[in-house]
């Protein structure tokens, strides 16, 4: 029986971690993640979990501790945000290269400078090429559900990769929402016993992690790493199917919202997708065929599936809450690559919105959908990339 609660996104994810009870968490506080692992530390102190929690001196160290614990043979989790994720950078590559299934909620926050603590996707997008699987979450419920599914995905014996679960800083991490919790026993049963691949603590079979691999084999190892990433989509869908059986909540590689017969569509990640769906409904009630696509699995990116979902639209705007200065937004670059393979493709524009936690309002979605409607009716694209709600 599900239990309905009113909790913050951080609290929901901390509760998911409590239900899973990892062996080791190497943690370091950073806004807006702090309160997630602070809650987890309370579970440890109260004896609700038997996790070995390692309080370290930086995120570089927290990821290092997680890597060691995971290679030793434990089920491992941590969480971070922003500068913390940036400081982990080199260790993120080691976690994925060593194929260690560490699970890490990332409470998305802008990067310095200037210093800003609010919700934006620059941190997660910066970790795009680290070899981690990335799941993105619209709200607290999805963050909770994705955290539980992440363990099954990352620890799958065909995968063995670390997974980030992204949720918007403050907007989701600190807002109280209605969330359905699963029973502790259900979650425990769903994630199952942790299985080891090559545990260092199996002393009868000594082994080494992190050897020097030079020009003779490095290229092959990276090719193999791409291959395992390509298996992730099927595992994500398989795990989602099992999760739906248990919870009644359906997940895919992305969410298509009123997209089937849409002429115009927004592609938008996380919390702002929720705001946009209301505006899509308004356009629909005015007789304009608007739709929305909300990516969930960002790495590996489901190029073919997304192209298929968008192929019948006339104009699409990819909304980015992160920027690549001198380039297009990171999500735009992916969607653009996906659509390029189509013979007939929709017009495509890119809007940068909500950096550093700037409010994303229904009126912004309305502006963009109006522009898309004009483009769908033959209007020329005035600029491929623009910033919305920016003061001149």
């Amino acid at each position, binding site marked *: 029986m599900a239990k309905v609660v009113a909790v913050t996104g951080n609290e929901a994810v901390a509760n998911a971690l409590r239900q899973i009870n990892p062996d080791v968490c190497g943690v370091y506080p950073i806004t807006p993640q702090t309160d997630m692992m602070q809650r987890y530390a309370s579970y440890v102190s109260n004896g609700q979990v038997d996790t070995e929690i390692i309080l370290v001196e930086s995120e570089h160290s927290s990821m290092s501790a997680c890597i060691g614990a995971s290679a030793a043979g434990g089920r491992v989790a941590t969480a971070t945000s922003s500068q913390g994720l940036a400081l982990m950078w080199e260790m993120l590559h080691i976690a994925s*290269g*060593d*194929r*260690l299934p560490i699970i890490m909620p990332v409470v998305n926050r802008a990067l310095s400078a200037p210093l800003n603590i609010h919700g934006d996707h620059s941190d997660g997008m910066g970790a795009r090429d680290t070899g981690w699987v990335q799941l993105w979450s619209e709200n607290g419920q999805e963050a909770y559900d994705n955290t539980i599914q992440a363990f099954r995905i990352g620890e799958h014996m065909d995968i*063995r990769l670390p997974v980030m679960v992204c949720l918007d800083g403050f907007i989701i991490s600190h807002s109280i929402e209605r969330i359905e919790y699963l029973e502790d026993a259900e979650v425990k049963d769903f994630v199952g016993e942790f299985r080891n*691949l*090559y545990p260092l603590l199996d002393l009868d*079979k*000594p*082994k*080494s*992690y*992190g*050897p020097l*691999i030079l020009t*003779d*084999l490095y290229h*092959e*190892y990276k*090719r*193999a790493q791409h*291959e*395992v990433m390509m298996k992730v989509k099927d595992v994500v869908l398989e795990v989602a199917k099992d999760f739906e059986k248990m919870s009644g909540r359906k997940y895919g590689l992305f969410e298509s919202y009123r997209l089937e017969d849409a002429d115009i569509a927004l592609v938008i990640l996380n919390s702002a997708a929720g705001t946009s769906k209301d505006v899509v409904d308004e356009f629909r009630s005015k007789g304009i065929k608007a739709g929305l696509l909300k990516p969930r699995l960002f790495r590996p990116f489901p190029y073919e599936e997304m192209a298929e979902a968008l192929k019948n639209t006339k104009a699409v705007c990819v909304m980015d809450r992160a920027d690549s200065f001198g380039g297009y937004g990171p999500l735009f670059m992916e969607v653009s690559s996906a659509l390029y393979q189509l013979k007939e493709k929709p017009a495509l524009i890119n809007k940068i919105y909500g950096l550093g936690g700037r409010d994303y309002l229904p009126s912004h979605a309305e502006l963009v959908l109006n522009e898309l409607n004009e483009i769908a009716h033959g209007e020329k694209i005035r600029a491929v990339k623009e910033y919305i709600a920016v003061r001149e």
Partner: protein
Amino acid sequence: MKQKGWKELVEGSVILEGGSAVKFKTGSWRAFRPVWKEENCIHCLFCWVYCPDMAVKVKDGKRAEFDYDYCKGCGICELECPGKKGKKAIVMVEEGK
């Protein structure tokens, strides 16, 4: 030796056996070769202690020959060698000379 293809690799480049460094003969890195002068050796075994690899062999508690398969020619043994009456029992000689 036939090199492995990308489908034949162990996940995460983990090495699934102990002591496999023995298969990797690093002696070819050497630019200077240590030469043991037995007549100056007091068998203190400082060279055996200080060798960062295991390139100094010991037999029946006595200093034996170098194992040139693994000696990289770092010269630490020569530096540490106290020798006998001011004469070193290990001297570094340029390879190829």
